[in-house]
């Protein structure tokens, strides 16, 4: 009796321990979920996901777009076809005055310099008129002080005096008697092409008070902007149209789409997987068990990613939702094999399949880890997210699930009967037919397969925004959006000197007609070397003879020479970036200049141009390169595709190595890989037959397909549960849930996710179905070799 009591005590103690452990797990899972909800910072900026941090061009672009000024700026364009200038002006006046009354509007200005801006700029640049006079100071000043040059300059002084703003001219003349300041603005006029703004549109620039990152405020403001426009348009009888663009517009759209994708994919994926589980296990308690484990897994994965990267990208989360379909595989296997057992037997059953789970998890992990070495920043995050998820799911399946099943008193017998399928798969004729079909699809489809150059991360809505953006920008100035010359230097001085060397090259292109206009940083800013050269050239020429010649030139124009101040050498300090930062010119300069701790970028915007001619001309200019956003993206896509090919190869080799180590036979390892390999061939052939171009994301999809399909082959081959039907049930359910999870990506707005959906989902199903067709004999052979009892 004491022995029996003791046994009861032990059982009770064990039971208490199980309850305590499970309760602790539920508490930890709940805490992790709360922590994940509170701690994880969800970011939706596509550039985080897309551009690698080390590419200079992208760094410049991202730096520009993330600048405080640009992140809160809207470019608004009003179309007023068929309206007179007066009618359009009245409409713009009314709209602007309504917009200005909003607290959110910090500033609003037309795309022209206001009189106040112009005055400020002229006043600011007056002391620098000599420093910024010319790129070739000696030649330019010699031209200026020649008799013809002095006559021209004196005439220009007179014309300016008699122009629309004599007061401003007189104030400049007091310190700049030759009015060299105007030369700066004349140079700008010569560089630019025709005025960009057509008479059918008016564009204005609007800055908000809220930061660009405050997307809720930006979305609210965009609604207000739409409402106010609609109301003013109605007051004026309709017929006006508004478009706007800017970083906040893109950011808000991307966020809305990412949220929508996450919600849609998440809800669908979880609902589908849960429904399938419920249908198969016919147990709400099993559903609770799976849900708890999935919440634990996803929360842990999100927190690990947050910890590693400092944020979680929306696309990672959307794609990571497929993790639900992958991780549930381990739970399904454990539930199927241990569902009809209890207590220690249950633990024993899970322990028995643990090596297979581990090897399956390892091969899947290999696929995801290969993503992290792709160099594609978004995929690194996905790899970390999914990798963490797989590890947590594996450990949960081994150490938590049996206790949880015991606590919930789960007794399961999966209601999925696939004996017919197993028997049919044993038919040798079927095997031949399947192989022939796959070979045909592979051959025909493979010959039609082609690679696309575009990464195609843009949704139709984003494409529309990009087109609007290009249209508005082309109205604001005669600049070709997305193409410019980028100059890079270690210091501001180096970059400015390179930019100054570039300018004659662009002038030459303009003279040849290969370039309609260009917008360099000079004369807004010049290197100290050039400023010094200008100062020396001027000071050397200011002689009594020049003063006399200038007086004569003024008198010849009917001007009173005595009323003008005397020409003097200058010793003003040079203009620097720091000096510009709080000046009225900074808004203009900062759009082209990005100063980083170790690198400085200068962009020279280009008007209509011949890309090949510009590229060739730049070949001889050090530190300058032609940047085309589309070319750059195509190049990145090609690089990524090449990397993805390497990843696929590397991933398959790594899986083969793991399998060879496991089975101590390369032939068995290869046999396990065959269903996955043929599934890939089938999917590739299918894409070829569909005539759709393949990109990097398809290759990634293929790698994931291979990594997941190998799991099914391993489970099928090893049958460590010693019950082939059960094993096949588990594999079937796993394949269906994984396939459904990935198929859910197909409902996303983002086409990048479509590529993954329609690669992985059919691939996984094909890989699973090929296991009994191709591996039955080999599985029997291996199990016999392991001394397993025949399956029941």
């Amino acid at each position, binding site marked *: 009796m004491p022995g029996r009591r003791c046994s009861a005590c032990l059982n009770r103690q064990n039971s208490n321990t199980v309850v305590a452990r499970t309760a602790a797990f539920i508490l930890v899972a709940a805490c992790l979920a709360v922590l994940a909800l509170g701690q994880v910072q969800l970011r939706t900026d596509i550039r985080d996901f897309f551009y690698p941090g080390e590419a200079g061009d992208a760094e410049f672009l991202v730096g520009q777009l993330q600048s405080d000024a640009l992140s809160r700026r809207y470019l608004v364009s009003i179309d007023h076809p068929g309206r*007179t*200038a*007066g009618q359009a*002006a*009245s409409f*713009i*006046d009314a709209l*602007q005055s309504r917009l200005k009354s909003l607290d959110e509007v910090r500033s609003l*200005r*037309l795309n*022209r*310099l*206001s*009189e*106040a*801006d*112009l005055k400020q700029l002229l006043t600011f640049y007056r002391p620098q008129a000599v420093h910024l006079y010319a790129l070739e100071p000696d030649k330019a000043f010699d031209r200026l002080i020649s008799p013809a040059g002095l006559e021209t300059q004196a005439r220009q002084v*007179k*014309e300016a*005096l*008699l*122009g*629309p*703003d*004599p*007061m*401003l001219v*007189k104030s400049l*003349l007091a310190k700049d008697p030759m009015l060299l300041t105007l030369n700066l603005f004349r140079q700008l006029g010569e560089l630019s092409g025709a*005025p960009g703004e057509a*008479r059918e549109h008016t564009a204005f620039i609007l800055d908000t008070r809220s930061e660009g990152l405050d997307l809720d405020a930006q979305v609210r403001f965009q609604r207000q902007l739409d409402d106010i426009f609609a109301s003013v348009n109605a007051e004026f009888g309709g017929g006006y149209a508004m478009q706007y663009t800017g970083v906040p517009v893109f950011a808000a759209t991307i966020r809305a789409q990412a949220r929508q994708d996450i919600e849609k994919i998440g809800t669908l994926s979880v609902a589908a997987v849960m429904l399938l589980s419920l249908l198969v296990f016919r147990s709400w308690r099993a559903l609770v068990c799976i849900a708890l484990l999935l919440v634990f897994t996803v929360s842990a994965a999100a927190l690990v990613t947050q910890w590693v990267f400092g944020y979680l990208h929306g696309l990672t989360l959307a794609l990571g939702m497929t993790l639900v379909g992958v991780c549930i595989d381990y739970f399904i296997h454990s539930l199927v094999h241990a569902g009809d057992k209890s207590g220690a037997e249950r633990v024993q059953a899970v322990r028995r399949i643990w090596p297979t789970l581990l090897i399956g998890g390892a091969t899947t992990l290999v696929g995801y880890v290969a993503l992290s070495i792709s160099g594609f920043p978004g995929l690194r995050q996905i790899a970390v997210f999914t990798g963490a998820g797989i590890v947590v799911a594996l450990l949960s399946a081994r150490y938590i699930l049996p206790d949880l099943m015991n606590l919930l008193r789960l007794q399961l017998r999966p209601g999925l009967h696939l004996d017919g399928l197993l028997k049919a798969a044993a038919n040798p004729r079927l095997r031949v037919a399947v192989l022939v079909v796959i070979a045909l699809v592979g051959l025909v489809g493979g010959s039609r397969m082609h690679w696309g150059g575009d990464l195609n991360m843009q949704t139709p809505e984003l494409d529309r925004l990009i087109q609007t953006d290009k249209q508005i920008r082309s109205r604001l100035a005669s600049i070709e959006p997305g193409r410019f010359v980028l100059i890079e230097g270690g210091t501001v001085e180096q970059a400015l000197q390179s930019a100054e060397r570039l300018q004659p090259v662009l002038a030459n292109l303009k003279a040849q007609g290969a370039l309609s206009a260009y917008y360099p940083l000079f004369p807004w800013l010049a290197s100290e070397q050039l400023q010094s050269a200008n100062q020396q050239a001027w000071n050397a020429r200011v002689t009594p003879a020049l003063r006399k010649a200038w007086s004569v030139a003024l*008198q010849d124009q*009917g*001007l*009173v020479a005595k*009323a*003008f101040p005397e020409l003097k050498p200058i010793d003003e300090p040079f203009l620097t970036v720091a000096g510009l930062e709080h000046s009225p010119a900074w808004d203009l300069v900062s759009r082209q200049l990005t100063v980083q701790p170790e690198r400085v970028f200068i962009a020279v915007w280009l008007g209509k141009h011949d890309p090949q001619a510009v590229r060739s001309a730049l070949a001889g200019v050090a530190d300058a390169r032609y940047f085309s956003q589309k070319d750059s993206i195509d190049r990145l896509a090609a690089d990524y595709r090449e990397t993805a090919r390497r990843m696929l190869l590397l991933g398959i080799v790594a899986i083969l190595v793991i399998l060879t180590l496991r089975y101590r036979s390369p032939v068995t390892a290869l046999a396990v890989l065959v269903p996955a390999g043929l599934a890939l061939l089938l999917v590739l052939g299918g894409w070829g037959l569909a005539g759709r171009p393949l990109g990097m994301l398809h290759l990634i999809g293929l790698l994931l397909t291979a990594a997941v399909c190998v799991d099914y082959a391993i489970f099928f081959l090893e049958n460590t549960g010693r019950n082939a039907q059960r094993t096949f049930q588990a594999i079937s359910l796993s394949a269906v849930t994984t396939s459904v999870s990935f198929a859910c990506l197909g409902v996303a707005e983002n086409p990048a996710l479509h590529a993954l959906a329609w690669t992985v989902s059919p691939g996984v199903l094909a890989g699973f179905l090929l296991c009994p067709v191709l591996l039955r004999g080999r599985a029997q052979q291996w199990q016999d070799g392991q001394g397993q009892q025949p399956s029941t």
Partner: protein
Amino acid sequence: MKAVFALYLMALTLWPLAAAAQDTLADVLARMHVHDNRQFHYRETRHLAMLAKPWEASGDMYIAPERMVIAQQDPEVRITDITRTRLLHIDPAHQVVRTMQLSGPFAVQGLEPFLQLLYGESDGSALEKRYATKFRVVDSRWELHLYPVLDGSGPISQMWLAGREGQGADYLKLEFEDQDRTEYHLTMIARGPDARQAMQRVLKQAEQ
């Protein structure tokens, strides 16, 4: 009866005097305020210390409720189109098109008080906050003299406007802080639709 008759005679005698009552500042301001289209011929003379002799120009000036257009014809064609928000200056000979956004409604430096009279409050209340006014009528002509009362009101130190009684201004003189000055002699040549059509023709030509 005699008394009544005497009163009646007296009333008849005073009637022409009452009908021809002198212009007041309020009358002039109300008359100046733009509510229709007008076309003037103008002659401009600039007296600048930096110029050896005064510079003269002439052309047509169009005043409409939403804009003012100065179409200089001599010595060179130049069009200046001023709206509430911007000033457009076109110099066809030199192919110069200059657009300036104005910091306030019709806030063109050098013409600000004059444009205030045309486009500001019709009772002159806003004008009076910034400028002191002296108004008088002499020899059937009214004269309005304005000078800024606030520091930093702009470059104009004094402005004179004058016209015949019961009519708008035909003379404008602007004197600047540095003693330079500009005079305009104005002659109204059209009013209403004709003036508007003429202005639109000028604007169309300028746009071409």
